[in-house]
């Protein structure tokens, strides 16, 4: 049960922040905290991929955007003109449609957000799977470049396609209601509820990831990261594990995209930009590659500050600076610096004896 101690603290923290915010009449901070929560979800997936499976992804914003855009398109695309079609009637019979009024009083019929979300997640999983098979065979710079390339393609497609609203993105995405009025929505009256929705989701993902890492699978991931040859020699299908981790992290990013899109009521191409992907990597690096907790903390802090506008016009420069400083002085993340670790770093990690024969290469 010790491993859930952190989760308990997190839950207490979530509640405490809300209570303090409500009682000090500063409940509006929860808006940015909620948004930061969704970004944190995406970053946690990336932390799993980078820190534990050892694979860099410079295109993770692409998956966030795939999730967000799929759900935005499906929940704003007006199906009313097709109301005589068989497909429409089928959806209607299955109660998968949602009828609503837009800002100007026109009636729109679109897919229910649940359906949109399911489609978004399946789509991101499928794309991650198809892309992952060849991409994850690459290493080092080639892997970095391939994932970066994937991100750029998503960005270009979003920017160049009328369906995705080109440069304007998609607006007027309806709320994602679970029960009555309760649901993901940017409505200011539902702010506390939305804060909890976002952060309980983060919490659940933390629980799932902690369970995952504390298992046969998690051990295998660490093994692959530490010594790939040896893990193959004990029968671990390294390619399969990397691929599944890639898909898992893509789906989590897409889920975050779905959530934020409904919360914001829209999405724009900036969510798919390379700078966003770099930002995610910066946060994972700052949190300490293989530390879910560190990543969560850094993500919450940095995203919150950024969304509040505290960094002003130096937002990008700041993330660039973080990347460099962390990688130069604390490649294991700032929060991982403690005396024990610092002491360990003074004595560098061992490398095996290179003496001996080098046959067969």
């Amino acid at each position, binding site marked *: 049960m010790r491993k859930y101690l952190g989760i308990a603290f997190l839950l207490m923290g979530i509640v405490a922040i809300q209570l303090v915010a409500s009682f000090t009449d500063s409940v509006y901070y929860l808006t940015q905290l909620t948004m930061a929560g969704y970004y944190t979800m995406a970053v946690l997936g990336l932390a799993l991929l980078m820190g534990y499976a050892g694979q860099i992804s410079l295109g993770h914003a692409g998956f966030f955007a795939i999730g967000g855009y799929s759900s935005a398109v499906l929940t704003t695309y007006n199906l009313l003109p097709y109301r005589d079609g068989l497909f429409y009637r089928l959806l209607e019979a299955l109660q998968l449609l949602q009828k609503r009024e837009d800002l100007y009083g026109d009636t729109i019929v679109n897919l229910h957000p649940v359906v949109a979300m399911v489609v978004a997640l399946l789509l991101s999983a499928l794309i991650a799977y198809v892309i992952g098979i060849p991409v994850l065979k690459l290493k080092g710079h080639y892997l970095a470049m391939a994932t970066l390339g994937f991100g750029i393609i998503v960005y270009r497609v979003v920017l160049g396609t009328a369906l995705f609203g080109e440069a304007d993105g998609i607006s007027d995405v309806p709320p994602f209601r679970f029960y009555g009025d309760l649901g993901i929505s940017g409505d200011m009256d539902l702010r506390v509820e939305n804060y909890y929705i976002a952060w309980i989701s983060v919490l659940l993902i933390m629980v799932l990831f902690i369970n995952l890492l504390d298992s046969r699978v998690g051990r295998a991931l660490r093994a692959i990261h530490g010594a790939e040859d040896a893990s193959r020699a004990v029968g671990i299908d390294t390619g399969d594990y990397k691929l599944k981790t890639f898909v898992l992290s893509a789906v989590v990013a897409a889920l975050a995209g779905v959530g934020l899109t409904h919360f914001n009521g829209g999405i724009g191409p900036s969510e798919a930009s390379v700078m966003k992907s770099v930002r995610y990597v910066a946060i994972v690096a700052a949190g300490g590659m293989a530390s879910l907790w560190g990543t969560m903390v850094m993500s919450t802090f940095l995203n919150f500050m950024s969304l509040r506008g505290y960094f002003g016009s130096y937002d990008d420069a700041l993330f660039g600076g973080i990347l460099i400083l962390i990688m130069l002085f604390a490649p294991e993340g700032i929060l991982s610096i403690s005396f024990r670790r610092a002491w360990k770093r003074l*004595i*560098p*990690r*061992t*490398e*095996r*004896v*290179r*003496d*001996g*024969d*080098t*046959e067969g290469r």
Partner: protein
Amino acid sequence: MLRIINLESGYGSLRVIRGVSLHVNPGEIVTIIGANGAGKTTLLNTISGLIRATSGRIIFDSRDVTGLAAEKVVSLGCVLVPEGRQVFSTMTVKENLLLGACPRGKRAAGRADKDIERVYNIFPRLRERHNQLAGTLSGGEQQMLAIARALMSDPRLIMMDEPSMGLAPVIVREIFGIISRLRREGKTLLLVEQNARMALGISDRGYVLETGRIVLQGPSEDLLQNRDVQRAYLGRDLDAEIRL
């Protein structure tokens, strides 16, 4: 010429060389033999400056070279022919040799052609391969090129790490012939070999290295006769003595 006192070295926290002391006199061939993993390569790498010693001293030509960078050590006249035919495979034979003359600085530039000629006389096969890319040479030729390149710096001490590794017997014989010739020309050599019989055969003295320590030393003939050496490295007199 070379004196090593209580040398300790290794990779990270792993100590591979544990308190080794040895010396090489001018004009000698000295052989170090030992099993895989005994630390022979680490020892040579430490002397040549590729690895930093954690303690102990290395004195070359009455000058303390401990902790000196590899490129400095070479320019003092102590050159290593590394294990495994480390040539510049994407460059021609001639370019490899020219680079070998680098440690001598600008002075050598004008004499480079003459030096190359001198080296070609020792390795006539290389002259034929003059403009060929080093990576396309045969294993033996690459080993010769590595030695030739080392000679270009006009060293006083040449250290060789397993020059016979992976080579056909006839080539090995040729290389050992060249080693003998170098000694006749006044070079001092420190040799690390697995082919113990052959190495001890041409050397004056030998050391036996085991798990990072010198366990045995003496004139080569004595070592060749030593029962422990025979058992462990020459594959003779087996079962009887093994105490399990």
